[in-house]
């Protein structure tokens, strides 16, 4: 009956998550797709398909089932789906057990769970001066 109500309902629910650490959150669903360059001040949850570049000040989560073909640059990156591209994690990269990552990786800390698949060059170290100063 009241379609407007349905729309308004989802906003407060998301807002509750957003304000958890003061950072906004950009959330994609499994049917969503993103093509292009996204620069986001906050956390990004990637699901569905993404292609291009993601420059994120906060964390990036790639949901299981997501297919990403992009350059990702963020603080912490957690991958549970399929990612192809260059990855720069200013802090930590976590590959979950169904994760697939192909590409070069530059991280400070790395955690790869059993079952994950990784192909590419890994560089570990301190990268404070790299990135967009996020």
């Amino acid at each position, binding site marked *: 009956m009241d379609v407007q109500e349905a729309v308004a309902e989802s906003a407060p629910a998301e807002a509750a998550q957003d304000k958890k650490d003061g950072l906004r959150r950009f959330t994609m669903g499994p049917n969503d797709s993103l093509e292009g360059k996204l620069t986001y001040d906050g956390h990004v949850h990637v699901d569905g398909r993404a292609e291009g570049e993601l420059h994120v000040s906060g964390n990036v989560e790639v949901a299981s089932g997501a297919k990403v073909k992009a350059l990702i640059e963020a603080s912490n990156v957690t991958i549970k789906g399929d990612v192809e591209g260059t990855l720069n994690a200013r802090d930590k990269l976590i590959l979950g057990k169904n994760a697939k990552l192909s590409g070069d990786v530059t991280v400070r800390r790395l955690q790869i769970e059993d079952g994950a698949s990784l192909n*590419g060059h890994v560089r*570990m170290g301190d990268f404070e001066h790299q990135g967009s100063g996020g």
Partner: protein
Amino acid sequence: MIGELHIDGDVRLGGTVQGEIHATGDVEVDDAAKVNASLAGGDINIRGSVSGPVTARKRLVVARSGSLTGDVRVARLVIQDGATFSGNVSMGPQPDAFTAAPEPPAAAPEPVTEAKAPEVAPEARLSRTDAKAKDKPKR
């Protein structure tokens, strides 16, 4: 230890190791170990410092006290939080073919320090290609 070691079984490395380690079984690198060698084994568990290519036919685990620099070819990979790792990673089921080089497949009980062992392998790898039959197998 400095040199080339072929072990039929498991091997555990402590201290300083330089050269090549080939194990048919598992390889464990102790947390105080400093290994500057290529490692090949089934399950490889690194708790110390390793510099060199690593090939794990089954699984490679770099523990949080571990540090690995070098290219890695594994079927499965686990890197624990706190571990250090730099290098190229190539994952996928690792066939036993490439391990045939250091290991004499038929003559298992032979002491592997003999130079004879490596000679057997290239033939085994090139055996079915008649075109190359007249070429000297290059190691």
